[in-house]
């Protein structure tokens, strides 16, 4: 295992220590919980709080989206494990100014259980919490059981839209409504070319044979929907785009936001090679690409692979995505 780590049992502590050091200008650890990272000036009077959280190993998700006009506080879990209920609870308290808190997370079984326990605890303290789960990964469950799908990189749109709405003075219901709209209109799919290794485990948690690719692989190495011979970047890009468009089943051309993320060890160069073909497919079907994000937005430790997310835009979502934001994972400058 060729990795830059100290004791793998404490990797999340090391991550958080380094992270809050690097961004101490606008970020800090919660005084109440070592596994909660927050904006320095959260809670902000009059503003709805935005909370998220999830397992570590997906950096910049989740803590990388804490910052101006996005997320206010985040619960940080162990590698690939939901944060404890207590961490979600403390994150909610750190984000609440009295206007309520929107908890926007990824619909994994553990997160669901822990968030629900946390919400119950917070409500007992008189905090008004509502939640939205991202369910963009179309490979994680068939269309008939969409409610079981997991949230992956598409969550970035949910946090961006929800965070901007809150910054613009939206009520908790307003924020929940746009976050829900962002989640409902986003679909993602991954392709993996190699496994990933949980540092504490020390060996890859699955195998992809040389010359093969795993379509629909999950963000923790969960097996995908099928294993196929590795194809050209253009063919892979077209297959992924088609799969998402199929799931959307649009009846006419749309304004689209594209988010192409590496999964951890994917070279930047390849993302652009892929994007070239993705835009071609969208254009051929007369869709208009209005927003493009390419980089590492939600990763899976050292997995070699990519996720492609498409969001169907309306004017409100488009404006919210373009609203300025400053986090370590995404900075939007007024254009």
């Amino acid at each position: 295992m060729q990795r830059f780590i100290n004791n793998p049992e404490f990797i999340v502590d090391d991550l958080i220590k380094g992270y809050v050091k690097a961004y101490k200008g606008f970020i800090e650890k919660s005084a109440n919980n070592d596994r909660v990272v927050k904006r320095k000036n959260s809670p902000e009077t009059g503003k709805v709080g935005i909370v998220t959280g999830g397992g570590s190993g997906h950096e910049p998700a989740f803590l990388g989206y804490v910052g101006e006009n996005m997320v206010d506080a985040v619960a940080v879990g162990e590698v690939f494990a939901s944060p404890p209920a207590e961490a979600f609870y403390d994150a909610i308290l750190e984000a609440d100014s009295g206007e309520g808190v929107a908890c926007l997370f990824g619909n994994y079984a553990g997160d669901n259980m822990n968030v629900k326990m946390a919400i119950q605890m917070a409500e007992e303290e008189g905090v008004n919490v509502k939640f939205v789960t991202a369910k963009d990964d179309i490979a994680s469950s068939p269309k008939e059981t969409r409610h079981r799908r997991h949230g992956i990189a598409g969550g970035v749109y949910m946090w961006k839209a929800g965070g901007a709405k809150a910054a613009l003075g939206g009520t908790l219901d307003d924020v929940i409504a746009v976050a829900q709209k962002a989640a409902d209109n986003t679909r993602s799919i991954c392709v993996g070319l190699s496994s990933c290794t949980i540092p504490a485990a020390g060996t890859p948690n699955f195998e992809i044979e040389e010359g093969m690719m795993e379509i629909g692989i999950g963000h923790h190495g969960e097996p995908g929907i099928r294993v196929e011979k590795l194809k050209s970047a253009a063919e892979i890009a077209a297959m992924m785009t088609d799969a998402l468009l199929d799931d959307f089943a649009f009846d006419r051309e749309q304004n689209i936001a594209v988010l192409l993320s590496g999964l951890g060890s994917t070279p930047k160069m390849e993302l652009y090679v892929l994007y070239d073909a993705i835009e071609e497919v969208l254009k051929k079907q007369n869709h208009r690409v209005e927003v493009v994000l390419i980089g590492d937005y939600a990763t899976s430790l050292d997995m070699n692979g990519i996720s492609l997310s498409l969001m169907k835009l309306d004017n409100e979502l488009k404006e919210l995505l373009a609203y300025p934001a400053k986090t370590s994972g995404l900075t939007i400058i007024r254009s």
Partner: protein
Amino acid sequence: MRFSNKEGITVVHAIIEEIVSNRDYLSKVDAAVGDGDHGINMSKGFNMADKEIAGSDLNMNEGFLVISKTLISKIGGSMGPLYGNFFRGLSVASKEKEMIDSSVILEMLKKAYSNITLITDASEGDKTLIDVLSPAITAYKINYKNDHSLPDCLNEMMAKAKEGLENTKNMTAKVGRGSRLGDRTLGHQDAGATSCYLILKAFSSSITKIVNAES
């Protein structure tokens, strides 16, 4: 056949040891259809609880409460809330009891089970720890009602637990990470069911040991 809540702390220790020593095995089982971290998650929580318990002079029900609180506040994942609620049930149902007998143990198991079902809607056949827990506890209940001895109740419980664990191999995962695999989970034993079996096994054999020593 009974033992004191005080003596029962050895049950707590036995469970912790069982989980900690099966760390790599549990992760291996999880790797086949999950993300390979079940042993890491579990042993981390149980190790923390072990440290918390060490040195202090706790009753069994207090020991279970420490495990529960540690899992809920420090572990997260699915196991934090699920086993956190499970051990909370074992603790709550034995809290007021100075002596533990087969009837208290029935209440403990029932409460632990209902606490878990409160938080997940997984049911039998979904390839989870429920597939061990549910038949195991039913077996205990039946044997208890038939006035069987405590060791017999526990023995029968473990026979059904083992059967339940084996059965998860023939199930398609319906919840958790394995659910996206569909039929590809066939042939693989469920990780949560495995840890649940180990917990029940340590629970049963350590109790049997105490009561056999007493008699």
